[in-house]
């Protein structure tokens, strides 16, 4: 017996010798954050994500995971700069006619698709034609249907003429409309293998996609802005945030979004301070609870308002976000020009909530409200793996119970959620978030006609005044006029409460300190990913070219 015991001890000791991890670690006072070096090629960046991309062609994708990866593979004609102005990406320059109806793009020359074929205006034309094609299942066609005429002037010049002035026009020419014509012409885009194995011209190209596990992208050595320094980008799918966090610490993941808890309580140790860089900035994102406005319970506005009064948003921000964010009052982010700070706010007031519910015909019976023999009971759907949303739902459930409304919560896996329930409008209430663009045009979300399958007005909101204002907002280039329209829209939305606008969370990403060149800005940190690098001395992998 003792023999075995001794063997065990030796065994365990042997282990401690082999405890090395392979990723550079700060040792004895030296912080990786402070080590600098010259830009060098090499190494790989692994990002952790809970959701898996579903399709890698931008116009066909609706979820952020797909867009994130597709965004590295496809560039657009233009993009946002750090000061929120629009600058050229694939387009070298452009002219806008005086009446704002014609935009002429001049493309950069010599850009190649990763299969060697040159990128030309024909590809933009093909992309445009595809996105406005009725048969293409995209949620983004509306913006492009505003175009009256698109022309290829020459190999590198593309011109669009709009029917009416369209304020967001320029900003729409991102990566949604560039497609490799030579690979897709004549084929059905939804059945193309490019959805899972795209050919783009961006800084990275897809090497392999292991379903359920990860996507591996190699750098595009011929990228027109210069070969990216980091040789590989790995998008790892880890549906569980806690596991992802452990992976961050043991080297499996280099970059991830931290939960508020992780940001405030778990990343303040010596280890973290020396080996990681944390960032915090407000994002163009807000979380909301949306009602299915076709559901009998939610058709009465007083009911929706009552629910808004019954909820304490500041409580949610404190508990769920640890204060890393702010309550939302509408679909715009505070401190941006379209944001209207003077809309009706629903300060926490359960008495008022109860009163409104009584007015709407709900009577209390044994602690639950009832009307026409039906108890007030509904289900909130949200996506699995998102503790923030689950907790938000739980807090809402608790608060609503106090005014006599019973709530069930159901968490669904993301793609099932989107495909089977959202797209098919099969829900009572949902807790979700929107990522919005710096341009305030939100036509796709609020316009009453945008209720077809896969379109974004899945709550079936219908307000003619809002419809008119949405039109107005996108038809004029005058900022003051636009501002008036969007301010009024926010007033109406605040009255109507098709969503309960819950909060605007801060972004709190973390990146391993060996990656240099990161510059936080209002548009985030990944906008200049191709320029990030790992100094030679800190490189973990040596990829053989």
């Amino acid at each position, binding site marked *: *017996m003792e023999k*075995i015991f001794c063997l065990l001890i030796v065994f365990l000791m042997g*282990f*401690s010798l*082999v*405890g090395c*991890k*392979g990723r550079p670690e700060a040792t004895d006072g030296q912080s990786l954050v402070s080590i600098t070096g010259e830009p060098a090629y090499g190494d*790989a960046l*692994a990002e952790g994500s809970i959701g*898996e991309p*579903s399709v890698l062609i931008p116009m066909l994708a609706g979820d952020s995971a797909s867009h994130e990866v597709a965004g590295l593979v496809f560039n657009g004609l233009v993009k946002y700069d750090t000061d929120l102005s629009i600058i050229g990406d694939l387009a070298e320059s452009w002219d806008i006619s005086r009446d704002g109806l014609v935009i002429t793009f001049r493309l950069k020359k010599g850009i190649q698709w990763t299969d060697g074929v040159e990128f030309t205006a024909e590809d933009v034309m093909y992309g445009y034609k595809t996105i406005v094609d009725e048969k293409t299942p995209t949620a983004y066609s509306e913006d492009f249907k505003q175009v009256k005429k698109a022309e290829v002037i020459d190999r590198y010049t593309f011109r669009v003429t709009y029917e009416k002035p369209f304020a967001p026009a320029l900003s729409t020419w991102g990566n949604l409309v560039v497609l490799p014509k030579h690979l897709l012409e004549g084929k059905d885009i939804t059945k193309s293998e490019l959805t899972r194995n795209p050919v783009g011209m961006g800084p990275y190209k897809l090497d392999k996609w292991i*379903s*359920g*596990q990860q996507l591996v992208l190699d750098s595009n050595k011929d990228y027109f802005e210069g070969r990216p320094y980091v040789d590989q980008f*790995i998008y790892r799918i*880890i549906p569980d945030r806690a*596991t992802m966090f*452990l*992976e961050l*610490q*043991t*080297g*499996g993941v280099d970059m991830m979004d931290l939960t508020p808890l992780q940001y405030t309580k778990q990343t303040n140790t010596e280890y973290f301070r020396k080996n990681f860089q944390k960032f915090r900035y407000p994002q163009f994102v807000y979380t909301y609870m949306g009602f299915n406005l076709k559901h009998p319970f939610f058709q009465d506005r007083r009911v929706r308002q009552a629910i808004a009064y019954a909820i304490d948003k500041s409580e949610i921000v404190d508990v769920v976000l640890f204060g890393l964010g702010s309550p939302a009052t509408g679909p715009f982010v505070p401190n941006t020009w379209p944001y209207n700070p003077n809309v009706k706010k629903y300060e926490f007031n359960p008495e008022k909530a109860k009163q409104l519910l009584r007015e709407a015909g709900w009577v209390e019976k044994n602690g639950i409200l009832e009307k026409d023999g039906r108890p007030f009971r509904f289900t909130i759907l949200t996506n*699995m793996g998102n503790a923030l949303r689950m907790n938000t739902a739980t807090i809402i459930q608790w608060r609503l119970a106090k005014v006599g409304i019973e709530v069930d919560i*159901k968490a*669904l*896996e993301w*793609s*099932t959620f989107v*495909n*089977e*329930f959202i797209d*098919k409008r*099969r829900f009572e209430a949902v807790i979700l978030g929107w990522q919005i663009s710096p341009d305030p045009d939100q036509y796709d979300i609020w316009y009453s006609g945008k209720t077809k399958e896969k379109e974004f007005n899945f709550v079936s909101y219908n307000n003619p005044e809002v419809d008119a204002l949405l039109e107005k907002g996108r038809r004029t280039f005058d900022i003051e006029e636009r501002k008036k329209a969007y301010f009024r829209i926010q007033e109406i939305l605040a009255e109507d409460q098709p969503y309960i606008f819950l909060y605007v969370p801060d972004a709190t990403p973390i990146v391993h300190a060996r990656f240099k060149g990161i510059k936080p800005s209002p548009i985030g940190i990944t906008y200049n990913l191709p320029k990030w690098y790992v100094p030679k001395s800190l490189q973990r*992998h040596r990829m053989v070219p």
Partner: protein
Amino acid sequence: MIMYLAKRFLEMIPTLFGITLISFFIIHLAPGKPTDIFSELNPKITPEARERLEKLYNLDKPIMVQYGLWLKKIVKLDFGDSFSSDRRPVMQRIWDTKKPLIERRLFVTFMINLLSMIVIFLIAIPIGISSATHQLSLYDKITTTVVFVGFAMPSFWLALLLMILFGVYLHWLPISQLKSMNFDSLPLIGQIWDLFKHLLLPIFVSAFGGLAADSRFMRSSMLEVIRQDYVTVARAKGLPEKTVIYRHAFRNALLPIITLTGLSIGGLIGGSVIFENIFGIPGMGQLFYMSVMTRDYPMVMGILTIGAVLTLAGNLMADIGYMLADPRIRAK
């Protein structure tokens, strides 16, 4: 001996039939069917999913026809296509013939369970024997207590505790997946070592319950055997104690353990759902868990059936092992 084997084989057939019947029954639990009293409790099945189910399992046809069609498909291992976004055939997701062996989920689960069983054998048996031979000593009392606690300990709790200790605090071992990211660039010896590091905790957790059970049974079995007359005879003959224990007592005490191990295969396979989930191992258990969570019915049915067949095969192996070990049966 051949007769025995043949009999066993024949007996398996009705059992296999029974498994298919039960699986068939389970499919019909899918909500929406008039037979279901459970239907209101899971209203979240969508008409699309319902439609796909009907097509896949021919639910609109008469019961006997349904069963016949189901059986025909199963024999070919055709469980239909997965409901998940990539719509690959179920069998392919379990056992992808286009991938290297180690990336096939079934293989991964199989390998881990096999290793667990070996570990259980190697550790539980010596512990059981020594407990029996030193009955009522301090050693025995300690091991008995540890074993009892081991019985009662939830495996997922153990997994969490170990993960924190070895993975996070001590940084000794990786805490998820089967291999590190740079696996492909390692030399063969590096790959084996990497695999080993990743497998250590999962195998330990998987084997733990079995360890407790088996060592306890080994002990009981040994105790019973030691009391037998032939052992007293052996001692009286003057044989050294070691020979008495290992040559005579041990062999006989081993027999029930083999049966027990055979019976525990089902438990091992079932347990893989838990630890594969916690440790992020891409095996069949993790796939099963994901399929359950996403209501991927064909996938669930496929893995259930495969799991049952494997368990059956395991029991058969255990029986054969028992037969080989027990000369009384061989003599028949």
